[in-house]
């Protein structure tokens, strides 16, 4: 079985499980919705918030939603014992990792699309070009969240207190991505002076770096 096919099978399995019982995704979605509503209420007084505050509010919600959605990528396998079965299977471990990242990416994209829609309804919307730039930033950031989240989940496979460990490792790793995404969002809101092309290229490089790091690292972590 080649790498892409294995990755597709793993991704399809994770996504079908999430579709059958969308416990994690619905919890993350509800968390994101509640966070946006709380932010809208918190920013209701004192006139219109600045673009920097609006961009910051959006990315606070997206980062924590990404963290919650991706850093328990191996949670189900650890709980039902399927992880050990995966280890003894002949499937390439790198391919399994890629499959996990694909599933996390699709889930994160769907959640982010829903949260962006609510954000635009609750707060100001940029013009069409700005909205396209914002959407591009969110898609590329979702790739980064998926790559880092699954990697962090793999690192904590044998650890005690995995649920606490995930955010501890995820957030520092996500900081460069957040810096670029927030700067790009400010450009989208016509409030920043960053170079959009450079920032988009940076996000692509970030995604590629952590995808490759995960592909190289997971076989080292998935030991008996």
């Amino acid at each position: 079985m080649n790498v892409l096919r294995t990755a597709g099978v793993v991704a399809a399995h994770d996504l079908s499980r999430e579709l059958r019982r969308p416990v994690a995704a619905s919890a993350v979605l509800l968390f994101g919705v509640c966070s946006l509503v709380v932010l809208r209420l918190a920013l209701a007084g004192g006139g219109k918030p600045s673009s920097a505050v609006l961009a910051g509010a959006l990315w606070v919600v997206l980062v924590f939603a990404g963290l919650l959605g991706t850093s328990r990528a191996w949670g189900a396998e650890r709980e039902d014992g399927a992880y050990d079965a995966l280890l003894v299977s002949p499937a390439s471990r790198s391919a399994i990792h890629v499959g996990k990242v694909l599933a996390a990416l699709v889930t994160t994209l769907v959640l982010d699309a829903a949260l962006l829609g609510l954000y635009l309804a609750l707060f100001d919307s940029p013009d069409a070009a700005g909205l396209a730039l914002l959407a591009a930033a969110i898609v590329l950031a979702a790739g980064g969240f998926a790559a880092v989240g699954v990697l962090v989940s793999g690192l904590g496979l044998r650890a005690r207190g995995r649920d606490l460990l995930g955010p501890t490792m995820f957030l520092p790793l996500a900081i460069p991505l957040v810096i670029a995404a927030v700067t790009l969002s400010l450009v989208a809101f016509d409030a920043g002076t960053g170079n959009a092309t450079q920032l988009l290229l940076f996000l692509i490089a970030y995604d590629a770096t952590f995808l490759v790091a995960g592909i190289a690292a997971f076989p080292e972590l998935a030991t008996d």
Partner: protein
Amino acid sequence: MSPRLAVVLALVLVPLTVVLAFFWAPTNEIGLVGGEMQYDFAQKVFYIHVPIALAAYLCFAAGAWNGVLYLLKERDDYDVRSYCGVHSGMVFGTLVLLTGSIWAKAAWGTWWQWGDRQLLVFLTLYLFYAAYYVLRFSIDAGRARNRASAVYSILGVALVPLSFLAIRIADTLIHPIVLTTSENRLTGPMWGTFGIGVVAFASLAIVMLQLEAAGKLRAARGWCADEERPGGAADVDGPAAGSAEVPAHA
């Protein structure tokens, strides 16, 4: 660099750097204020702050390199050296944050500038490596812990350039950029002091790293010998004599 040479260099050059920074290197003129020339005394911190930051990166790089060697050869002494690299890097990282705050207070009038992304990125790296301890000590001692620690220490190598690239292409940089290719703001004595500082703190980093690794490896060997003595605690899973298996506290 041999351990003895590193010790001699550290003992001689670290105090020399401090003396040269404060008594030899010239101070930049800021400009006339009320008819009197004002000098940039905050610049003195540069000769200590930047070499310490470079020493911190050297230690983190040593941690990552030994992590790579551990993954390739699976020898426990590489795991100890990787841990010691990160540990020494954290010590220097703490000093970087402290000296950076002193610089910020002298230059900007505030201990910390939240708008400065370069400071924030170093804080991020510091938190990243702080999480190394949480990861390492939440996994039982053994191969799984060593491998996870090695992979994590190597990830820092990816995070450092990405972090600096992110702040370079973001637009609100206010951290003073002293070393640039377009404008050389350092004079000869300044370069001399800075160069001596870099060698001094790099030597200190090497000494700290080697001392800690040697101590931990010696403790591990002693621990193994105790396990093997008649009447000692029997541990059928314990490491073989002479190996460098690390005790749980390492």
